[in-house]
């Protein structure tokens, strides 16, 4: 059952990064777009029906962590209290702003506030998500029982508030924007579509540049995660494959092959995330004193069994439902095309 639980942990993490990420990314694209009004309307049509579903993956992720890996969860939740609070603030504000801007009975001047809350929330939340992940592997967490020996800043701030974490945060935000603009190409036509093609290229460049500086910074400053990342052949292969895939991605965008473009963009992000996880698996916490295994202090057999069964039961309801939801609202283009009787170019 451990493997079922681990599967769902990875599955919900990837789906949160992909779907939640595209959702955040849509807001980032809107924030930095020259045509905010046009972007706003596209986004409503695309993420509207699934906007909330995207974020439930995060709750599932948290529940799996605290049920199955309580010690790991404990470190995350105690020492990263502040960035987690900021993530919550971001999720709250952008979530309500999204609904308010589309469900307010009166469309008036208040739209200004909803729009800006949504855009800024969409940008800062993934930055803090990235910073939280970076803090876990950044080697700055001080795990201790005697809290009086350290200052508040050392224990609760310096572990995430540093250049390495900020780099990772910005990298994840750029990843979200890249995903969103690549996905949105298929939702639009004409001028808007050209716009998203340009954005997709723009964010790809930003991503590569940020990634380069991230590794350079980590290497120069002897950050263990980055050193291990560079010396882990599996991680390097995954990143290289992801880089090579950029070429078919650009081809598919140029040819207007919507399906291939989405799958490729998704695969690239998955490869990058897997590379980051593999660099240290299963030691996904790197603290000042040493590394901590995800499986350390794992819950006992019966807990794993019932969690695995609960997840399987949940999956039986959720996955077909989610698939059907996306299908009903033409979110999976391949099905629509098949209905039309034409094939993909």
């Amino acid at each position: 059952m451990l493997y079922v639980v681990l599967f769902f942990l990875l599955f919900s993490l990837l789906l949160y990064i992909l779907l939640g990420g595209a959702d955040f990314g849509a807001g980032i694209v809107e924030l930095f777009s020259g045509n905010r009004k046009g972007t706003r309307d596209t986004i409503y049509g695309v993420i509207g029906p699934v906007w909330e579903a995207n974020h439930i993956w995060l709750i599932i992720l948290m529940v799996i962590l605290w049920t199955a890996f309580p010690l790991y969860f404990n470190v995350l939740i105690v020492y990263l209290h502040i960035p987690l609070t900021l993530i919550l603030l971001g999720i709250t504000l952008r979530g309500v702003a999204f609904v308010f801007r589309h469900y307010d009975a009166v469309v008036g001047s208040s739209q200004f506030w909803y729009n800006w809350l949504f855009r800024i929330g969409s940008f800062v939340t993934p930055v803090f998500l990235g910073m939280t992940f970076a803090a876990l592997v950044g080697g700055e967490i001080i795990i201790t029982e005697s809290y009086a020996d350290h200052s508040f800043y050392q224990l609760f701030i310096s572990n995430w508030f540093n250049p390495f974490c900020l780099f990772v945060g910005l990298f994840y935000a750029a990843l979200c924007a890249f995903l969103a603009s690549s996905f949105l190409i298929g939702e639009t036509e004409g001028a808007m579509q050209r716009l998203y093609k340009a954005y997709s290229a723009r964010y790809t460049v930003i991503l590569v540049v940020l990634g380069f500086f991230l590794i350079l910074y980590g290497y120069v400053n002897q950050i263990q995660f980055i050193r291990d990342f560079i010396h882990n052949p599996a991680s390097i292969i995954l990143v290289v494959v992801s880089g090579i895939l950029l070429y078919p991605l650009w081809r598919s965008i140029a040819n207007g092959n919507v399906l291939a473009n989405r799958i490729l963009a998704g695969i690239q992000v998955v490869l990058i995330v897997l590379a980051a996880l593999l660099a240290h698996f299963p030691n996904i916490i790197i603290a000042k004193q040493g590394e901590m295994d995800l499986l350390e202090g794992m819950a006992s057999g019966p807990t794993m069994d019932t969690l695995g069964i609960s997840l399987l039961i949940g999956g039986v309801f959720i996955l077909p439902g989610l698939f059907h939801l996306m299908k009903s609202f033409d979110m999976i283009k391949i099905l629509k095309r098949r209905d039309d009787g034409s094939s993909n170019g």
Partner: protein
Amino acid sequence: MENLDYARLQMAFTLGFHIIFACIGMVMPFFMVVSHYKWLKTRKAVYLKLTKAWVKGVAIFFVIGAVSGTALSFELGMLWPEFMKHAGPIIGMPFSLEGAAFFVEAIALGFYLYGWDRLPERFHWYTGIIIGISGVASGILVVSANGWMNAPSGFEYVDGKFINIDPVGALFNPAWFTQALHMTLAAFVATSFGVAGIHAFQVFRGRNVELHKKAFKIALVFGAVAAFLQPLSGDLSAKDVAERQPVKLAALEAHYETGRGVPLYIGGIVDEGNRSVSHKIEIPKALSFLAFGDFDAEVKGLNDFPEDELPPVAIVHYAFQAMVGIGSLLMLAGLVFFISLKRKKWQESNKYWLLFVTMAPLGFLAIEAGWIVTEVGRQPWIIHQIMRTKDAVTPMPGMKYSFFFYVFLYTILALTVVWLMHRQIKTLNKPEN
């Protein structure tokens, strides 16, 4: 005040906030589905208009409930890390099933909100039902996790370690059924009277009377029925608490002296220092009967419990009085409603509508009071008789700032929602839109 006090205040405040939105998000879909059904049956435009107005309400309340619920799932660990470290593996099952139910609800909501004119009519209506059912299921599962804190089960506690964990036994802990039943009924009562009260106010002001009368009736039927069932469920809860948490029972009745044939106090001012209650009305032998079904049963008083295991008595007693008082009042209001269905004349009186306007916020007050009874009444324990709240709190200092931050954020959110609802109703009352 210490860090612990602020952590408790923050938990109380954010839970108290979430409960209101969760209840509305859980119950309003049922009103919406009934109105939708009437539209499909009668094809009267008024039902379609009402359904669509309620749908917007559901969407707004759902998102606030969802984001404040997400915040709570983090806060459990952020405020009480030591609790989650040990309790997480034991009560993970209700939480993971709740996650699944909530997910189903979000999917169904996606279908329902965006499905107008795009999905087959029956299927569209059916997704509305799923929203309601999965919402209620989520509520029951979360309450089951809370029940476990009151009635910890499904493990053995040996030398400070939790061993032989049985998550199914923890899910079906002795308190889950009585608590879940009481909470679900309470959600129906409060939301019904709340929504009906808002529509009653519109009828009272003479705005779009036809629509608001229909809305009032659909909403209140649920609450009036639930208000009559609630005392029965309350009786089950009281007997359960009497058996499992006698100190909580003694606190909610402010009952200090152990004895047989103990009277029930109504009202009264608690003096915690002198351990006495003044200005109360006594009903002879009633507490013994209500708690144990026997007029001469012995009820243990607060004086016979260790000093360091007593919850704050006054607040629990007052909250309990408020909950029971409001419950009884709403039951009477429900009776008035049922009679008015026969005697249509009552509905022509402005006083009738004003009565239900004043009832609107009461159900929610009763819910908050009920949670104060169960949560404050459990103190000083976070896991009854196993772990104290003070041993579970986060080591991070400065919870004061965190508390004020949440108060600020949620107050703004609440004000915005009230303002949005006001705009919804104004739009609804425009003759043509």
